[in-house]
């Protein structure tokens, strides 16, 4: 990112942005709301849900204006952005109307749609309803994790988030990032608490992963496969991962206390 400051106008107010910022970056930083369904700050923008459409124009564009995806559009000097007008609201409504026809059973979609004034779809409901909106967050986070266990298959209306050959994906490490990031709670992940001598189990994508218990408190924290994967990837010792966050903190604190002989510190 270069040092250069870029001046942009959003909804009549002026803001400074850095080169490489998207319209969404600037708007969110300045507290201007733009709805999104497929965006996550930690991941590369994708541009699939089209909910973040905003209208842009520029004094040099001879009156031309148009709708673009805020999550992808890079800011430029003098850019004028409107985040809400009739055209934008219309496009967002249609997108949510279409998603409601696809996912009539999704609570989240129903709520977001209602917030935009769409309470009932005007289109034909999908013959095989789903709650997946194909935002691709799960696939992208899995790729960032380095596991690449899931992807999309097929195309068009038949596109799906899929696992290879419909079998439990061999590359899945059970981290459940996909389930945590899913905005519509579509990906099932079930953590079974340990009973008696049996350790905990995480069920996801057809796998049953054995959970590692915290060395200190015994609480199940992460699948063994993920622990081995993270250790190998980072070069850290497995023991680093086999302590839960709060025990790890306590342990660190204790170590510091001993090392520096900090009196009075409990």
């Amino acid at each position, binding site marked *: 990112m270069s040092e250069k400051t870029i001046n942009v106008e959003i909804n009549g107010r002026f803001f400074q942005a850095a080169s490489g910022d998207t319209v969404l970056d600037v708007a969110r930083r300045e507290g201007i709301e733009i709805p999104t369904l497929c965006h996550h700050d930690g991941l590369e923008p994708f541009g*699939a849900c089209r909910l973040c459409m905003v209208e842009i124009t520029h004094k040099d564009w001879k009156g031309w204006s148009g709708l673009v995806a805020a999550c992808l559009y890079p800011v430029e000097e003098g850019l004028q952005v409107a985040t809400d007008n009739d055209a934008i609201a219309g496009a967002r409504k249609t997108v949510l109307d279409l998603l409601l026809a696809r996912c009539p059973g999704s609570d989240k979609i129903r709520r977001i749609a209602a917030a935009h004034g769409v309470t009932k779809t005007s289109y034909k409901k999908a013959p095989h309803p789903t709650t997946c909106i194909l935002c691709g967050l799960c696939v992208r986070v899995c790729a960032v994790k380095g596991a690449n266990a899931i992807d*999309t298959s097929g195309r068009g209306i038949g596109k799906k988030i899929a696992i290879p050959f419909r079998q439990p994906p061999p590359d899945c490490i059970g981290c459940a990032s996909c389930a945590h990031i899913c905005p519509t709670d579509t990906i099932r992940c079930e953590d079974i608490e340990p009973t008696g001598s049996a350790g905990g189990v995480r069920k996801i994508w057809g796998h049953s992963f054995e959970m590692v218990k915290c060395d200190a408190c015994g609480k199940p924290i992460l699948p063994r496969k993920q622990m081995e994967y993270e250790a190998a990837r980072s070069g850290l010792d497995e023991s680093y991962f086999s302590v839960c966050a709060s025990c790890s903190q306590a342990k660190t604190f204790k170590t510091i206390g001993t090392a520096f002989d900090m009196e009075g510190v409990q």
Partner: protein
Amino acid sequence: MFNQGPSWARSKAGNEMRIESVKSLKSLADKVRREQKKRSIEILVCAGTGCLANGALEVAESLERAITKRKLDAKLKLGVKRTGCHGFCEKGPLVVIQPAGIFYKGVRAKDVKEIVEKTLEGDEIIKRLLYRDPVAKKKVETYQEIPFYSRQHRIALRNIGKIDPAEIDDYIAHGGYQGLATALSAMKPDEVIDSIDTSGLRGRGGGGFPAGRKWRTCRNAAEEADEPRYVLCNADEGDPGAFMDRSICEGDPHAVIEGMVIGAYAVGAASGFIYVRDEYPLAVVNLARAITDARERGLLGDDILGSGFSYDVEIARGGGAFVCGESSALMKSVAGEVGEPRAKYVHSVIKGLYDKPTVLNNVETWANVPWIITEGADAFAALGTKKSTGTKAFSLVGKVKNTGLVEVPMGITLREIIFEIGGGIIGDRPFKAVQTGGPSGGCLPEAELDLAVDFDTLTSKGSMMGSGGMIVMDDQTCMVDVARYFLKFLVDESCGKCVPCREGVNQLWLLLEDICAGKGKKGDLEKIEALSDTIVTASLCALGKSAPNPVLSTLRYFRDEYESHIKGKHCPAGICKDLFKFKISKEKCTGCEACAKACPVDCITGEKKKLHKIENKKCTRCGACRNVCRFDAVEVVR
């Protein structure tokens, strides 16, 4: 590596020397030309995909056998050449006997004996194999006299049908690689770009973006960032009914390669890819062989023609997804990722393949480039119209008499293409519409037949040039059904990434399904228009943005037909099976019994020479009776 090509496809020229300089390229061309001139008769057998499917290979083989057996070669000095597509696919297999240009159509292996005895040994022309001009209503003896060819102006297709695509020397003898030689020896990269700029060449793949400007932007971006750059060829032609690019790859692969090397020199690229769909097996094989041969000849790879410039190209085979013809999806596919487009707020000339500056042009665009360099940018700019210069290849298909591949100067009217080159509508039925630009294009009615065919005019009328598919429709075509057909294609071919295209186009198609089934409701058309508007504005890529075109353009010109389906529950063209009945006209029926014989469900009764009747309960509305009736007696009623 596949790029080496299968062993049988390896160069026959393999053991000969590399061409080290521009001078030796010229002397090779002269040498091959002298050899070719020794032949007094050359028999060109079309070995394009269409003719091959009809048995062209057997024709060529039996010609060769007959010539050997009768020792005609010594006597007559003749040769048989397997060429690329002659373009007149409907009449194949085609055999042209040069230099007279005798044109035989629909030739079978069993006809070979007669051709050899009468035409080659004797001097007789076989009347039954000649083409009959449907406009002049008479048989035509030679290639040059056929209006389908004489009205054309071939630049991109200049060598197809004349050369053997498997012989690099044949291409060289026909002036091949001269454009490259000129560029490398006498022009600076900037001068090459200037020349393409002056020619006014615009991308033939659909977008119509000025090629020179694209090249310059890429070069400048790469120079500024000091980055490698790529020069690619889009051979992912996916429009139903379009086969211009396939024919060029099959029939003149070196023209594409030569164009790319010139482009690479201009842009400063060292490598690139030809992205070709695997459904084009002959194109893949011919391109692979051409690449191998060009490398062996020193026309591709390191130190081309001894100039110090190096550029190499590889074939990337695609799985045939329509969306992979879109530049950003194509580049992802080349890189081995899922072929999904990305938003192009930063253009691919700046951030393309592997995020590097990339020039992507389609097959036809590249094939024009060598011609522009050898014949001059002004010669190209002199053709066509001011803003759409040069020529354009179209695949003319549908209900037209002469289907095939045509290349005409831009600015020619639709009427000239369809009625003069195409010979008019099959059965002389009334013309209804012509669909241009593939699935994302639109349908134009009779009132627009005198439109000049160029990029901007077609777009202003709600259609587009696209890559050059042209589907002609007669009065027995239902425009609602046509829109439904193209939308279904796009529903299947949408990549599914963004919501408006994936969900919206599907909903549009469902609305049309209902209308065609008689379930259309008041307000459906307004709903279609509103939804189309969002799809156009909110979709991620050009596929989605243009997906509503088939329905929008038919609504624009044939709205009454939609209304008839919705309000009247009637399909006037007799296509939507739930919305019409067939009835035999009392006045027109002659009682010839043809319809009764053709009916697959035996629902037509009647005595000879008396009025026939259709039992509507049994009728499946297949239209077989209407197709066979020579008196137009089978009518569509409510």
